[in-house]
């Protein structure tokens, strides 16, 4: 693999954002994800390759480490930030259509619920998996989901809930989506949600952590 991409992947794995960022201490003063992504493009590396061979695999390593509890949320967030700084250079190619993402993912915390940290972590890791994420925020009612689905046909849907009461709203939203879009994939998560509940309400997949969702999505498009 291209040496620049290897270095870029390491920056993302260890959360090195740019040259001036002090973290991690052992990479102080070195180029970060920001500089290296730019350099790769200047050297003629295709944006697709940057995405496929550096960003996505690096974030996959990060997600795996988090699932195995080898790192904690803060390190994962630094990696996400490093990835975002690299992604910023690739975004113009998404817009021009030259580079394509894996698909679209619509995520929101269900009606009546205001918790967003968990949902944000999931959104971030899925973006790191090469997906375009449409974040509907918190207290997202059924209408909001249906509207977003119309705007982004074929998207995969993610719903988050933190209370047993708002889990009810999750059920309602899933039913409403199913009625109109029987074939869409729906993922659910949040503290009180379980695999059983996921099955019961007719959703497709439950994961207790972001990486489970990333792996599921990966297998959907492979």
């Amino acid at each position, binding site marked *: 693999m291209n040496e620049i991409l290897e270095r870029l992947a390491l920056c993302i794995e260890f959360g090195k954002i740019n040259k001036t960022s002090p973290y991690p201490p052992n990479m102080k003063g070195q180029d970060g994800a920001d500089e290296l992504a730019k350099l790769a493009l200047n050297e003629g590396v295709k944006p697709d390759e940057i995405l496929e061979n550096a960003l996505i695999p690096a974030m996959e390593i990060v997600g795996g480490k988090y699932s195995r509890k080898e790192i904690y949320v*803060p390190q994962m967030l630094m990696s996400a930030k490093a990835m975002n700084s690299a992604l910023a250079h690739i975004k113009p190619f998404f817009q021009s259509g030259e580079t394509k993402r894996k698909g679209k993912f619509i995520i929101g915390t269900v009606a009546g619920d205001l918790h967003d940290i968990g949902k944000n972590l999931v959104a971030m890791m899925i973006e790191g998996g090469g997906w375009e994420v449409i974040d509907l925020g918190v207290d997202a009612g059924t209408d909001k989901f249906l509207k977003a689905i119309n705007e982004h046909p074929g998207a995969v849907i993610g719903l988050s809930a933190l209370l047993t009461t708002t889990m009810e709203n999750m059920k309602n939203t899933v039913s409403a989506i199913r009625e109109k879009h029987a074939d869409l994939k729906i993922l659910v998560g949040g503290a009180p949600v379980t695999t059983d509940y996921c099955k019961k309400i007719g959703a497709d997949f439950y994961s207790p952590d972001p990486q489970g969702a990333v792996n599921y999505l990966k297998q959907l498009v492979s």
Partner: protein
Amino acid sequence: MKDKKFQFNVSDLKLSVSQVERIIGYKEGEDSGLVTGLIGEVIEEASQICSVKAEYAIFQDVRFEDRGKMIFIGNIDFDIKGIVYQQLKKSESVALFLCTAGPEISRRISNSMNEGDLLKGYVYDIVGSEIVEAAADLMQSNLEGEALNEGNKITNRYSPGYCGWDVVGQHKMFRLLNGEYCGVRLTESALMNPVKSASGIIGIGKNVKFNPYTCEMCNMKGCTYKKFRSG
């Protein structure tokens, strides 16, 4: 005993950086260089912006129904289920409480996240939760002192949504404790707004016992709090 209202400074709560590190997952002695400074900074900022409030109200008119594991406060029935019932059943009176870290910290969390500072938003989120817990601890020890003065003891605190007590139980609680002082509003879905808030009940009496909260009481799988609260 009288109803009481509290306003705390974050500095009264004695939050510790290492406690926040434990919640994030870091073990004793593990390198947490990435967050240590930030946690201190966030606690400091929180002490500038947060208006932490707590209140409790005492109810003397309580009755227990063993068959349904219910408690009646006045004429309102609370379906608290077995575990909480067991802890409360010897109470002669009860305190209903509410505490909140206030709305400012929630705003800070989303602002940080929206500005792309995910890490700070995350640390703010955890600090916010710790503020609520610490405020509840302070309120509780104050209540304990008042009870002791009258020769009474208190139970630990129990919240709707834990130990089998349905989170919907909060609607009845809010009929007795309207949340006006703390500025907490209960939504239709039994969610308190601001998010960093907690509600619950404490039993008072000569024959009640304070049992530490053990994670075994809870059926939550894979909880990040489990490993150190029980250990």
